[in-house]
């Protein structure tokens, strides 16, 4: 321990222990819970068909505003589609894209990290190099190429995000793997004749789980924004399917005349991303894995 440090550093926290720095982010947890619920059951609770046009009721305001009715709780857009139902449908898109991309990229990243970090040597150098180059490449540019070549679909959005996100996992997890690999108890288990697979399963994987969890949570916010951007540009989820991004694109000319068309998806998007980020930050502080450094 350095004797020059005046603040006595608290012992490294591992596991979900209470930290005095951060109270539990109840708001974020609740918002993420709601997001997950809508993401899974959105279609079941939607009062209307999100793609059903009803030009007779186009641009109906929300129920509390003048001229609004409880038929369309949050009003309708220019084609008379129910905003609430579209929001719920958009939540499903965001949820599917975010969870799908984060899980697949996490699996790839973890695999690469274990391979690179545990094997070391040239393979490690090569994989690190690939991950660095891939990470440095901007997502939107990547999306332009992929969409130009393979067209628009929800699957393509997920593929783009996986391509963009996996190197982050690989980079962070690799350094974690190397750190854990060199810890005494793992070295001991090797010295005592344990095999590599045992070390990976028994020691390394459980120890990178907190880091993985933090990364995944923080990536959810990123994935939701990226999907929104692509859909906003018209190269993400194709119309008429509802995504918060293309709802905003549809509503961009109605900020003054029919504010509810762009404002609700805008708020849904911001709050979901904010909650994911706050939750991720909190997890990062609480679990204190390598991402803090």
């Amino acid at each position, binding site marked *: 321990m350095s004797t020059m*440090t005046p603040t006595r550093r608290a012992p490294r926290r591992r596991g979900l222990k209470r930290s005095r720095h951060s109270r539990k982010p109840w708001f974020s947890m609740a918002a993420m819970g709601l997001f997950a619920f809508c993401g899974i059951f959105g279609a079941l609770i939607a009062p209307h068909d999100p793609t059903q046009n009803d030009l007779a009721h186009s641009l109906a305001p929300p129920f509390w505003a003048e001229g609004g009715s409880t038929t369309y709780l949050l009003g309708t857009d220019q084609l008379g589609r129910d905003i609430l139902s579209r929001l719920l449908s958009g939540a499903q898109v965001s949820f599917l894209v975010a969870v799908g991309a984060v899980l697949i990229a996490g699996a790839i990243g973890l695999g690469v990290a274990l391979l690179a970090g545990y094997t070391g040597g040239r393979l490690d150098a090569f994989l690190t190099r690939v991950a660095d180059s891939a990470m440095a490449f901007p*997502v939107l540019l990547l999306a332009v190429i992929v969409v*130009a070549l393979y067209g628009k679909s929800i699957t393509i959005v997920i593929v783009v995000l996986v391509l963009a996100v996996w190197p982050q996992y690989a980079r962070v997890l690799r350094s974690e793997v190397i750190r854990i690999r060199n810890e005494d108890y793992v070295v001991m288990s090797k010295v005592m004749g344990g095999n590599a697979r045992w070390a990976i399963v028994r020691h390394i994987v459980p120890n990178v789980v907190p880091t993985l969890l933090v990364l995944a949570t923080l990536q959810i916010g990123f994935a939701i924004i990226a999907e929104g951007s692509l859909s906003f540009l*018209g190269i993400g989820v194709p119309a008429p399917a509802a995504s918060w991004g293309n709802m905003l*694109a549809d509503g961009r000319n109605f*900020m003054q005349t029919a504010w509810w068309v762009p404002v609700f998806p805008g708020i849904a998007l911001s709050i979901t991303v*904010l909650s994911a*980020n706050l939750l991720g930050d909190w997890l990062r502080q609480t679990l204190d894995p390598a991402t803090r450094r």
Partner: protein
Amino acid sequence: MLRYTGTRFLQGLIALFFIVTVVFFLARMSGDATALLAPPDATPEQLDAVRVELGLDRPILVQYWDYLQGLVTGDLGRSTSYRVPVSDLVVPGMQATAKLALVAFLFALVLGVAAGALAAFRSNTPTDYGVRLMAVLGQSIPSFWLGMILVAVFSVSLGWFPAFGDATATSIVLPAISLAAFALASIARLTRSTVLEMLSKDQTLFERSKGVAPATLVVHVLRNSSLPVVTLAGIQLGALFSGTIVIENLFAWPGVGQLAIQAINAKDFALIQGIVIVNTLVFIALLFIVDVLYGLLDPRVRRPAASRGKKKRPTTTVQPIDVMETV
């Protein structure tokens, strides 16, 4: 230092070559462009004529070689939808994009470093809380939604700035702010955490034990904190260059981003190829500048200790920083 820079430069060229090759072959494999260009009722003879005119009847390697030769001389091919050389579209587009991206970048860098450093030096005060709150919000609000809000408030309601185009000098204000918000927030966060960590290091304590003026201490701390921030700033600048796609679309800014969307919708592969290559070139140039800057800032990179046997140079362009700040 010279050798270091040279190696970096060479690596950049190789990366560029790699991207060009991948994009070229992917584009050629994705289908025959002839059908798109010829009239819908064209006869097989007419199709062949178009194919010969475009040079698509030759072996793919010959086409590839031609394309590479063209690139060296600045010829990016012809846009099939605009029917003009791609460079005539991409060059002015890139100028507009670069203007927007650089203005946004300067704004994000100056304000981000200032806010982050201030928050760290005043940690756990209202200033700090304010900066942290703004940073979390800045990282959470999508740029296009922020842009829409800004337009509604500052353009439509207040009438201070134009809502679209690049006709006047103030046209750039709203798009630049919308574009910069995320980078600004990321830079502020990283600066804050880096300075805070630096303040608790032995190095800073030793500097304080010298009894130097507070200004000297601040310079030492900031200079040491600049290393990870430079790395992040480079990545963010690259992200700004491609992030303009969304903002250009929202604000009708005449850059390559708008061009890219039009090219996708028109299936204009030559144009897409040109845009991707120019963007990649800019991006690699930025990473190169960051590397050189890093060498200038850090004597350990510039003059690796001779006694340490194997020379340890960073093998990657991305220096160890909090990866989470880069998303």
